[in-house]
């Protein structure tokens, strides 16, 4: 079975460690954490690849534990033509994927660091951040 990419979101009250531990131990799943972060509202976000026979059972377990699971089918892209480098998104983005280069103050987007939380999509005053499927 080929690895599947998923996004996990943990509420404030869920501790990530035991949940991930059980995924490996109880369901024999091999995981590879691609990104992990804490968003502005103290919610944990993790992007990982999961491989194993008991993938579906593993997902079911995650959901029971209160983790929100989303397949990684979307992508957030930056329309550099439209972006005015205003900077308004840079303190909203939880991972620093959108950040200001100093001293030029030019805004830059590093898609590798994006966890697709979409916070920037509605915050950007000129709609330069787009969700792609």
């Amino acid at each position: 079975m080929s690895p599947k990419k998923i996004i996990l979101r943990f509420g404030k009250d869920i501790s990530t460690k035991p949940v991930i531990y059980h995924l490996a131990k109880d369901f024999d799943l091999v995981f590879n954490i691609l990104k992990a972060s804490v968003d502005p509202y103290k919610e944990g976000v993790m992007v990982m690849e999961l491989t194993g026979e008991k993938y579906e059972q593993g997902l079911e377990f995650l959901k029971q534990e209160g983790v929100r699971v989303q397949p990684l089918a979307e992508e957030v892209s930056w329309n550099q033509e439209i972006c005015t480098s205003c900077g308004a998104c840079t303190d909203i983005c939880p991972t620093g994927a959108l950040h200001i280069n100093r001293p030029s103050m030019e805004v830059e987007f590093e898609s590798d660091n994006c966890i697709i939380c979409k916070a920037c999509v509605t915050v950007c005053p000129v709609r330069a951040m787009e969700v792609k499927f």
Partner: protein
Amino acid sequence: MAIEKTYAEINAKIKSGSVVVMTAEEVISLVEEKGVSEAARQVDVVTTGTFAPMCSSGAFFNFGHPKPRIRMQKVWLNGVPAYSGIAAVDAYLGVTELPEDDPCNSNYPGEFRYGGGHVIQDLLSGKPVKLEAVSYGTDCYPRKDLETYITLDDINEATLFNPRNAYQNYNCAVNLSDRTIYTYMGVLKPDLGNAHYCSAGQLSPLFNDPNFLTIGIGTRIFLGGGIGYVAWNGTQHFPGIQKDASGASYGPAGGTLSVIGDLKQMKPNWLVGTSFIGYGTNLTVGIGIPIPILNEEVMRCVSVSDRELFAPIIDYSKAYGQRIPGNLGFASYADLKSGKITVNGREVITAPLSSYPRAKMIADILKEWITSGDFYLTEPVRLLPSHKDGITAKALEVKDL
């Protein structure tokens, strides 16, 4: 010997190609190295720039008369109402105006995807815009309704006329409450989660002419990618010098400009329709103002740097809305731009709403226009009131009826 230059002398240098122009950023190090007098001798014009959301903006249109004629009583452009309580086919479209059916904040926080500012940008992009009008019909203007498409080329006049732009300085907005708030200063996270500021600082036009020695009625400027003029002081023009409780000075604030220009020669990348989640729509306006170095005092003013300019820190969860006077201190633009400031003893991350890279681009474009002889300076017909005039803000008293 004191340096004195006139507008005519500077324009003669522009004509002969010998004019020396620097941006308000470049001139800082020149003055640091050579001093004010030598810099004033060398440089003739200093260019400034700002690119930020400016709510008090809009455009006058004259659509031309249809056959039969109509005295437009109500007008919509792409569904956004424009004010038509003026002559038959004239209207004013404000940038914060929303379509009649916008859900606004009933679905909090509202998205405000489209408004007057976006209509202006669409017109500049050459897109056809739907024009609708209704009327009661008169003997001289019999038509009662109209529905058509217009482009900027189809109509007679389109005049950008912004009653209040180019704020001299602006607040640094924070949120002391325990919930996220949605403001015209962007999304402010709870419990001092971030701080937003909105000024080009050392590049900002009115920070470079704090005493209104050169900018006045008739000053020719870069406006929205084309040429415009200062029409008047802006609304809420209350120039002053900021002071803290102990009386220490924190530099200028409060001046504003009203600007005007032919919309048809402006560009959609310098007048950008803007949406603030939970707040509304706006227009991000590019303005650049040339400052003639008439004397050393003018040069001293333009050499100001981000370290010497300060924004008052204001709580937008309560103090702003409830008009509670005072502030949480001042932050220098150097600190604001560094990405971190200290508020109430805590480190707070900052982000701008005003694009410094675009402001710099505007100052560079204006420099290029002047150097290449495409842009001459105008002597103001009248200078604007400064902090010395002591204009203060009036509050609106809500009287018992």
